[in-house]
């Protein structure tokens, strides 16, 4: 072998061998699908049997007006749809404010200013170490009367400050994850601190920040259910009212959960598509 010289086969001429149909892998897929079907069938059966044994009389035929009614060719939206719209409005506004708070708190925490660091640290610890429900009561019973805000905005601000503390940590993490060399590169060409963050650091931390931040917005939609305790007329409140009127507790809670689930799952799918396209853009 010693002293042997070979000519390389050109890459284009090297073909990958076709291994044909992988029966074992196909078998594994079938088994996984079968397993999933079995699990859901058992769960569904248990719920049905449980309700049966309680003599619960299902009245699914009555639920359509919860969504909409058609009167004289005009569609009147039912309480669940109106509740969902209010939930989305609440979560949307709170989400925007939460992200703003997050950026401010993250930069305050990263700044040289002692006051800024203390304020943001106290904010984060206070929010993360007290129950959301207690914060809501503080906003509604203490801050709202002082500042003269209504229950909707008390709910929005409470959720915004709550999620803002998580947003701040996500944003801070994204910014500190940018390589130290990028700061030095920006410094070496003499960029000002503002330009450095605007052109170099923040654009590079966005791909790290955006996916968890959109995840945060999804959990914001779920957390928004809590404002039903101060009677903001969102989806969960609509559900409570319907049950008080109709006593159809099982149907209504299944519907409410189903609506939350379909909204959050849709958003999750959008986020993962978005994440995918972000990664594709990366070279």
């Amino acid at each position, binding site marked *: 072998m010693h002293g042997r010289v070979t000519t390389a086969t050109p890459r284009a001429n090297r073909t990958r061998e076709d291994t044909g149909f992988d029966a074992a892998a196909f078998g594994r897929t079938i088994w996984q699908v079968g397993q999933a079907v079995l699990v859901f069938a058992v769960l569904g059966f248990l719920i049905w049997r449980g309700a049966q044994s309680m003599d619960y009389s299902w009245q699914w035929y009555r639920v359509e007006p919860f969504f909409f009614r058609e009167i004289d060719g005009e569609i009147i939206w039912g309480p669940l749809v109106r509740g969902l719209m209010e939930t989305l409005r609440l979560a949307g506004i709170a989400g925007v404010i939460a992200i703003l708070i997050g950026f401010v708190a993250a930069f305050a925490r990263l700044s040289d200013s002692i006051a800024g660091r203390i304020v943001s640290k106290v904010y984060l610890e206070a929010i993360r170490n007290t129950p959301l429900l207690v914060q809501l009561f503080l906003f509604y019973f203490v801050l709202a009367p002082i500042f003269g805000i209504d229950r909707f905005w008390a709910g929005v601000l409470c959720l915004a400050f709550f999620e803002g503390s998580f947003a701040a940590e996500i944003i801070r993490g994204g910014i500190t994850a940018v390589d130290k060399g990028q700061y030095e590169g920006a410094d070496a060409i*003499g*960029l000002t601190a503002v330009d450095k963050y605007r052109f170099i650091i923040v654009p*590079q931390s966005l791909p790290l920040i955006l996916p968890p931040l959109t995840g945060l917005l999804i959990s914001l939609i779920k957390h928004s259910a809590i404002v039903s305790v101060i009677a903001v007329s969102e989806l969960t409140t609509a559900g409570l009212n319907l049950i008080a009127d109709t006593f159809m507790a099982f149907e209504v809670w299944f519907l409410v959960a189903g609506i939350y689930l379909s909204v959050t799952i849709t958003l999750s799918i959008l986020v993962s598509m978005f994440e995918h396209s972000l990664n594709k853009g990366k070279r």
Partner: protein
Amino acid sequence: MLDASVRPLVEITGMCKWYGQFSALHDINMTVNEGEKVVVCGPSGSGKSTMIRCINQLEAHQKGTIMVDGIEVTPDMRNIAEIRREVGMVFQSFNLFPHMTILDNLILGPMRNRGVSKKDATDLAMHYLERVHIAQQAGKYPPQLSGGQQQRVAIARSLCMKPKLMLFDEPTSALDPEMIAGVLDVMIELAEEGMTMICVTHEMGFARKVADRVVFMDEGEIIEVAGPEEFFGNPQSDRAQLFLSQLLGH
């Protein structure tokens, strides 16, 4: 020795730096005249990089003075901005901005700091990209380029700021062997055009060709200063002899 045309561009006097209790630099004295090329070498941890990073204040020194082009370097932000406009720096790890095209990497500094219009900045950038032989790649992103090409872009990016002084911090240490020559050629061309340069490097061929002086550092101190032929041929200090024997030993 008193020549009216020789003007000191960098004057470092009695500079010291500590990291906590650890003395990183001790009593550094060095003058670099306009047009001079100085190569700094020494074992790792000897403070070479730290010294040149103090010149544009990527690191702050604690004692002594650094004068760049007649301005004293102080930790004041406005002063630092002024110094950094005059001093270009090339890093071991390039530090190009990966989310911007090559062209955008080059025009950002002149546009934001020197108030150059986009068109003029683009002309300037293309001029320097041509000089480092990668004008065809202007629309690409840094990660699409080889290491050697990225380092040449980094040199062009510094040159776009029209610096009076260029600092090189081990510019070829992170490169594959076949990439080094292209970068050194660009540096040699730059030296021949009269750029003032301080280079931390162990490339002896480069040092022999362009250096006016070689500064040898060890344990945070300047141990020996000599012309390249004398230094590599007949080092005076024990530590320089040891260092060179290790460098050439295999």
